[in-house]
């Protein structure tokens, strides 16, 4: 290394100082790629970490946990488990639900309903000592035995301005309730659940709050000390045998695994997007370094002549790549953490919206996520520095550089590269054929990357072909400037082709995502207009959290049916279950109403009325498209549901389109649902009004009829549609932000390449001036070159983007989420976005000196 050190000054640091702008752009390019990746990884890690922390905290010292795989755990289960006491096992029941805080900033809190007698044996509670009188924990826990009392962790109390004895207003199960704060907890033990956004109440209070009388959400089992694995497994088996249908037992951690599975598709999709952004970043390293090598060729020749080995020169340039990688990646981590934080806060965590009804997680700077993003940035930087570093190492100290000869060797590579590119595109086409691997569209992603790589390899051929074909016509139409531009394009092929490839990458990402999101949106708009046909939609009030939390009691259903002007009420009721460890939803509605209105489009286009009427008369189910795709279920197949009296098997009458839930739903008629699951009430209700009643009038009547007893959110058809689309757009806001940044970076990259090429060609520009070309014409030639680069980049990008969009829609989305999306190209958006992404160097090239070109040293 000591032989390398003296080279850093002349070959690296000084030139970098001279080229601050390009240096900064390169670091920024890498930083954006790394930031994107880091943000995605961090946001995901945060969601999972917060969930798994809650799982751990809530599970406490439990060795086994009983959970519902159906509508809930019937309270009788406790009696079935009473034999456990004799075996030294403590049985701790709890109810878990989410409530919205009235007022505030849309806070939601987990409500943990506990049994104060047994709970301390599984979970820790520490009180904020208000006076010097130290009360026993148990004594204070009994405070929650009082009706409508809660214990609140200190930070939450502080945030909401609560003290002991004050009242906490919440919306729960469609009612506004006031809970008395019986005590303030230190942020220790169980109080750390949901990052401290949790309150503790007596089980009965929680059941009543959420209309869950007779049901539990979990039973934690604290096992006796000194149990070996075999004993434990045997005990688990015995517990399983004592459980009613729809209830399972296992280690507490298994919940985290389920959630991990839920967010996996989502995470993999975003990570793939981040990787593409990083590709754009690697282009920067390659471009900056290859231009550096070119500009420092004479210097390299000199140090080689002075005795530096080619290995040292290679190492210097590799070190430059690594240095840029380290700087860019570090900056990327900082940016990424910021982006992740913003994403978690602003979007509330897109994942949270869809997958977890839980308080928005706080940013966890998970070391593994940070390290992954950092190393990916560093390694890709070093890899993209390899080629330029090798080129530098091969500079012959004896001979002078002759630009053309180097480029000539590159030009010979055009055909092999193009053939490789074509092969990659072929592979991409093949990769769209296989199905998902472990539920993930891995081949689909491979196809997307193959398209990106294949089109990049075609870029040199595109440049030379278009240059050759267009030369004559362009010279006739645009004058000699076009020829100068063409000569420059092909003359610096190694860099212009890479610039074209990078721009096409950025453009293709934008086009692909625009096509995908545009198609998705058009499909959803369509679907929403087909399904949301009722006049009013009623859900439990969620305060400023804007979320529908919990279930409305049956009383609301009957009450609404009696409101004058209401023609029909279709209550939707559901719960979560699992099939082979994968979660899905069991839902219900009034099939007679759906059959009458036909507002549930079927995936195969068959008539909704016929399908639903048949399902109703035969007691069959309909399943959503994601369910059908995920579990490979078709019309006529059987599905099994965890009914209270044991599993029931139903025939599938049809598959319907559903874009509201990617877990998949099995829907049955409401009366069958109530009989099978002994559950009533509604999660939401769709109301049709009599023709004479306006939606606004209907809304007023409903609110008047329920005032004082229930807190309902009543939305008109129009406002719910708007809300649905707003949610859709919000979900993709992050995607668009990432896209915009990546494209901005790609455009900057092309700009920086052009700038560098102009600097590099100072001598040729001087020559043109000697031959009588005016400064205006020289700058026009550079603009033509920029335009040609942009046009080629856009053309290739649109081609690649269309292909990628198709893959995203028909392979990746279909396999990840089971959604069929109709291709719909957002022409207007693309037409507006594409011209603005073409690079136009705003500044004419550095005015060349009106003197003859400086001679290079004579060849020996």
């Amino acid at each position: 290394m000591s032989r390398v050190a003296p080279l850093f000054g002349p070959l690296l640091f000084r030139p970098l100082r001279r080229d601050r702008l390009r240096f900064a752009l390169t670091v920024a390019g890498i930083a954006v790629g790394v930031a994107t990746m880091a943000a995605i990884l961090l946001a995901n890690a945060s969601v999972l970490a917060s969930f798994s922390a809650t799982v751990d905290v809530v599970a406490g010292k439990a060795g086994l946990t009983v959970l519902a795989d159906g509508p809930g755990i019937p309270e009788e289960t406790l009696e079935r488990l009473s034999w456990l006491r004799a075996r030294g096992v403590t049985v701790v029941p709890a109810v878990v639900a989410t409530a919205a805080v009235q007022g505030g900033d849309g806070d939601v809190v987990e409500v943990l309903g506990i049994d104060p007698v047994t709970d301390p044996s599984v979970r820790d509670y520490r009180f904020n000592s208000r006076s010097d009188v130290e009360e026993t924990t148990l004594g204070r826990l009994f405070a929650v035995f009082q009706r409508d009392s809660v214990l609140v962790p200190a930070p939450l109390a502080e945030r909401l301005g609560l003290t002991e004895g004050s009242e906490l207003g919440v919306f729960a199960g469609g009612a506004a309730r006031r809970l008395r704060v019986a005590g303030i907890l230190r942020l220790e033990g169980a109080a750390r659940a949901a990052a401290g956004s949790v309150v503790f109440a007596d089980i009965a209070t929680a059941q009543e709050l959420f209309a869950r009388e007779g049901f539990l959400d979990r039973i934690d089992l604290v096992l006796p000390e000194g149990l070996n694995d075999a004993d434990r497994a045997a005990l688990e088996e015995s517990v399983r045998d004592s459980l009613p249908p729809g209830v399972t037992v296992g280690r507490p951690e298994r919940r985290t695994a389920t959630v991990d599975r839920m967010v996996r598709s989502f995470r993999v999709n975003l990570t793939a997007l981040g990787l593409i952004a990083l590709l754009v970043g690697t282009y920067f390293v390659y471009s900056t370094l290859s231009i550096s090598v070119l500009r420092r060729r004479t210097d390299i020749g000199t140090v080689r002549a002075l005795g530096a080995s080619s290995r040292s020169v290679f190492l210097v340039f590799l070190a430059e790549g690594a240095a840029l990688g380290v700087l860019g990646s570090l900056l990327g981590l900082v940016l990424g953490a910021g982006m992740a934080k913003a994403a978690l806060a602003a979007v509330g965590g897109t994942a949270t919206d869809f997958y977890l009804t839980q308080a928005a997680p706080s940013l966890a700077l998970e070391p593994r996520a940070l390290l992954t993003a950092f190393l990916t940035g560093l390694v890709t930087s070093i890899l993209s520095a390899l080629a330029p570093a090798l080129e530098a190492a091969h500079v012959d100290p004896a001979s002078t550089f002759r630009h053309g000869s180097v480029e000539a060797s590159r030009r010979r590579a055009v055909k092999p590269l193009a053939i490789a590119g074509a092969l990659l595109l072929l592979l991409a086409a093949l990769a769209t054929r296989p199905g998902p691997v472990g539920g993930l569209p891995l081949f689909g992603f491979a196809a997307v990357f193959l398209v990106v790589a294949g089109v990049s390899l075609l870029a040199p051929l595109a440049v030379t072909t278009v240059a050759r074909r267009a030369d004559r016509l362009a010279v006739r139409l645009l004058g000699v400037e076009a020829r100068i531009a063409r000569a420059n394009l092909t003359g610096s092929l190694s860099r212009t082709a890479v610039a074209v490839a990078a721009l096409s990458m950025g453009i293709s990402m934008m086009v692909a995502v625009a096509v995908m999101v545009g198609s998705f949106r058009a499909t959803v708009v369509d679907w929403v207009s087909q399904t949301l046909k009722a006049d009013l939609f009623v859900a439990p009030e969620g305060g400023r959290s804007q979320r529908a939390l919990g279930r409305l009691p049956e009383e609301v259903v009957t009450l609404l049916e009696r409101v004058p002007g209401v023609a029909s009420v279709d209550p939707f009721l559901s719960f979560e279950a699992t099939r082979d460890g994968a979660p899905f939803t069991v839902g219900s509605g009034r099939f007679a109403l759906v059959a009458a209105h036909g507002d549930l489009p079927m995936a195969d286009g068959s008539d909704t009325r016929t399908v639903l009427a048949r399902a109703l008369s035969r007691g069959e189910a309909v399943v959503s498209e994601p369910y059908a795709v995920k579990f490979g279920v078709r019309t006529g197949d059987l599905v099994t549901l965890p009914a209270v009296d044991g599993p029931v098997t139903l025939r599938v009458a049809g598959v319907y389109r559903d874009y509201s839930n990617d877990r998949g739903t099995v829907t049955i008629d409401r009366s069958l649902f109530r009989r099978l699951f002994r559950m009533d009430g509604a999660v939401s209700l769709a109301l049709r009004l009599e023709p004479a009643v306006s939606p606004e009038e209907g809304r007023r009547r409903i609110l008047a009829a329920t005032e004082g007893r229930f807190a309902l959110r009543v939305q008109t058809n129009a406002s719910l549609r708007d809300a649905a689309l707003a949610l859709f757009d919000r979900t993709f806001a992050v995607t668009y932000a990432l896209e915009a940044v990546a494209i901005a970076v790609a455009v900057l990259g092309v700009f920086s390449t052009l700038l560098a090429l102009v600097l590099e060609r100072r001598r040729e520009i001087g020559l043109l001036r000697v031959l009588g070309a005016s400064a205006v014409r020289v700058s026009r030639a550079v603009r033509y070159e920029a335009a040609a680069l942009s046009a080629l980049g856009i053309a290739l990008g649109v081609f690649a983007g269309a292909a990628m969009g198709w893959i995203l829609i028909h392979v990746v989305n279909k396999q990840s989420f089971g959604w069929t999306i109709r291709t719909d190209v957002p022409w207007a958006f693309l037409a507006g976005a594409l011209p603005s992404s073409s690079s136009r160097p705003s500044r004419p090239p550095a005015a060349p000196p009106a003197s003859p070109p400086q001679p290079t040293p004579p060849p020996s």
Partner: protein
Amino acid sequence: MGASVVVENVRKAWSATSEAGEGAVSEALAGVSFSLEPGDFVALLGPSGCGKSTLLNLLGALDRPTSGRILVDGHDLALLSDAGRDLYRRRTAATVFQFFNLLPTMTSLENVALPLLLDDVPPAEADERAAAALGEVGLPEKAGAFPWQLSGGQMQRVAVARALVVRPALLLADEPTGNLDSRSGARVLDLVSDLVAGRGVTIVLATHSNEAAARATRVLRLRDGLLEA
């Protein structure tokens, strides 16, 4: 037809910076006067640094004298606008360099056609005339070759063709053989004296080769920025 050139007491000074010390002034030309008749073939002789290149730059309107005047066909070059100077370089004064200075990214034909296209000659005609010029310098088969595929002598012949193709009135050649072996050098000089001089073009050939000077009809010797008597 060749151009008449009048050089009147031309001085060119550079305010040198770091190299020669603060505020120092180095004088490349210290008052040079001569005049050329149309068709004159002048060899400009002198050692390196005597001011030959500076004088050629001034004659090519690439630079302006510090004082004095240069008249070409009666027009003072210093009074030309930028556009006028571009036009002068395109149509009147053509240059051949020691290091050929072909554009590496263009073929021979394109290099030769370039000045015509810059002068808005239609592309078809430009190609035709460029091909003819390549024929005249004996390289018709190298039309599609890139500079890096040519030898030094061939490159210089392409450069001569590029200078010829605009039918200039004044040819400025700056050490055109300085970078060539003697046989290639002689070939280029043949071209210059036969083709160019034969058309009555005024030629200024800066060189320190006596062989080159022998072809000229007149010799001017520069030393330390002054013409030797």
